[in-house]
């Protein structure tokens, strides 16, 4: 029991530094939802039901622009498709869990939770309570996202745009890759993925993230072709 609590707390603490940029992002989402005329309930419900920042923005923007359901839902699916890769990476650590655990942890699987818990799993793959780390990091992010969406809905744009807090989003992901920047093969993959993302940025359905990811992984496969 102490072990479970400890691991859960470690998960919460590990995601804590990543929560700082989540707050302005959640507030911005709440403000956009209200400005587009969705009202407090619909705006908040997207944070609970979809719970994926960039997909939520795509969702409400496309609906307010009058896009067809097919276009809206396809876009949400494509923006989220990177989670398939996260699931593939984490599957081996979560394999033995009961279905209800898999459902709960999948619902909580965000970029940030994946990043910190994947690192933890790699080091602690023998511990049978390791999944409590993902529960901690996932819930930490979930609570922060719900509260900051509500803040945005209730208080409006309390953070001035001039502060450029949206810049903390790329900074978050830079901070998650700093260890990888010490390995030459990873640097190549990072540069390929980043450049492909820029080139593909205006592709329909916001497909640039998954296209860049596939390009990056193809290069990774090529660079490691000699190992079998």
């Amino acid at each position, binding site marked *: 029991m102490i072990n479970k609590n400890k691991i859960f707390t470690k998960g919460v603490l590990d995601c804590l530094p990543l929560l700082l940029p989540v707050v302005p992002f959640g507030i911005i989402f709440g403000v956009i939802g209200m400005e587009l005329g969705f009202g407090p309930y619909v705006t908040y419900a997207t944070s609970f039901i979809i719970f994926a920042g960039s997909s939520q923005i795509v969702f409400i923007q496309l609906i307010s622009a009058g896009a067809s359901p097919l276009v809206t839902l396809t876009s949400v699916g494509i923006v989220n498709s990177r989670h398939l890769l996260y699931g593939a990476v984490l599957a081996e650590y979560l394999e033995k869990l009961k279905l209800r655990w898999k459902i709960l942890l999948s619902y909580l699987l965000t970029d940030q939770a994946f990043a910190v818990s994947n690192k933890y799993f790699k080091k602690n793959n023998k511990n049978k309570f390791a999944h409590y780390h993902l529960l901690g990091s996932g819930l930490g992010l979930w609570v922060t996202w719900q509260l900051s969406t509500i803040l945005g809905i209730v208080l409006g744009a309390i953070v001035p745009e001039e502060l450029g807090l949206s810049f903390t989003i790329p900074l978050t992901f830079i901070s998650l890759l700093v260890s990888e920047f010490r390995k030459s093969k990873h640097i190549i993959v990072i540069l390929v993925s980043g450049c492909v993302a820029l080139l593909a940025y205006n592709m329909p359905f916001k497909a640039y993230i998954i296209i860049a990811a596939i390009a990056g992984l193809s290069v990774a496969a090529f660079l490691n072709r000699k190992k*079998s």
Partner: protein
Amino acid sequence: MIWLKMIIAGVITFLTRFLLVSLIKKNSLTNKTKIVLSYVPSAVFPAIIFPGILIDGNGTLDIENNPKILASIIALIIGVFSRNIIATILTGLAAYWFIIFI
């Protein structure tokens, strides 16, 4: 109608997270696949980083006089040496504010 669309979007989002967690079994992946999968952060996160720095609000590439570029490089250098998440983010933000306000 909006609620139906939202619930379907929620289910789609959930499935992208749940599908491979539930389908992949421990020994169903080859070592080669595991090696490639270890590159997932390096292959996915730059697709959020690069446009976040280099593409402006209108969807066009912004390279000249873009204070985010220098701020990101400073954040990266601090990050690589400190390996500290919060130091990386705060340094980047502080550098950005320094460039635009001073």
